[in-house]
């Protein structure tokens, strides 16, 4: 597993742990009320699990298992994928925090813009790796 995949999957696992913890608190509170403020965690729970866990896990595994490039760097333009990783996490965190009371309205927009930019960059990065098996170049005599 290449370093970027390792970091993406580890971050995804952290989001999974946080998202499941918030989800458990919300569900418990629905059955046996603990505190009304726990309902505020619903959008954070959704953001962490859909973007932080699922999208990030898929990006991380795709970076690892998509067909490698040859000739040239086998993972292609990895800088684009690293940038997508940074933007995805900044975006997920901003979009989640923006749903809490008192957050500046621009934070939510910034979060969504970062997430969309991350998706665009990752798509641009992955595009050349989505292909059939390349035959080795014929030897020139």
């Amino acid at each position, binding site marked *: 597993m290449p370093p970027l995949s390792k970091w993406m999957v580890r971050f995804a696992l952290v989001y999974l742990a946080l998202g499941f913890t918030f989800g458990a608190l919300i569900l418990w509170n*629905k059955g046996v009320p603990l505190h009304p403020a726990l309902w505020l965690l619903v959008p954070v729970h959704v953001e962490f699990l859909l973007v932080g866990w699922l999208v990030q896990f898929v990006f991380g595994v795709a970076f690892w298992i998509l067909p490698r490039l040859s000739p040239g760097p086998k993972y292609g333009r990895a800088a684009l994928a690293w940038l997508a990783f940074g933007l995805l996490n900044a975006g997920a965190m901003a979009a989640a925090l923006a749903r809490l009371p008192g957050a500046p309205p621009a934070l939510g927009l910034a979060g969504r813009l970062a997430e969309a930019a991350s998706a665009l960059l990752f798509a641009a990065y992955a595009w050349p790796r989505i292909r059939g098996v390349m035959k080795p170049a014929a030897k020139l005599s």
Partner: protein
Amino acid sequence: MPLITRVYIKASLLYLVAALLAGILLAGSAAWGFPAWVGGLGPVYFHLFLVGWVTQLIFGVALWMFPKYSREKPRGSERAGWAIFALLNTGLLLRAVSEPAAGFRPGSGWGWALAVSAMLQWAAGMLFVLNTWGRVKER
């Protein structure tokens, strides 16, 4: 493909079908006014889909394809893998039953069933993270 992965994937496929059936009930409820408990299936539909299908499929495939934990224990703790399966599915099925029931009869024991289902699913998630962490490595 190891047995544990086959079990996870087959269970996830059953949840996909169950989620889509719940979606049919919800759509039918809006159109034809099914019993009140059907209207409470919204969160169950989402969680059958995203936990039962998507997350469980990922858990099963990760157990199979991630780098080996060690030569002796390639998938980490095999017992943990089975415990995660049992906790996740018991919790999710308990939720699928108790959430509409708790909505239909507030203040009944179904609320506690919902709390227990929350703990079971949470334990499954934490155990998966702990059991998988050591396999997320470069070699």
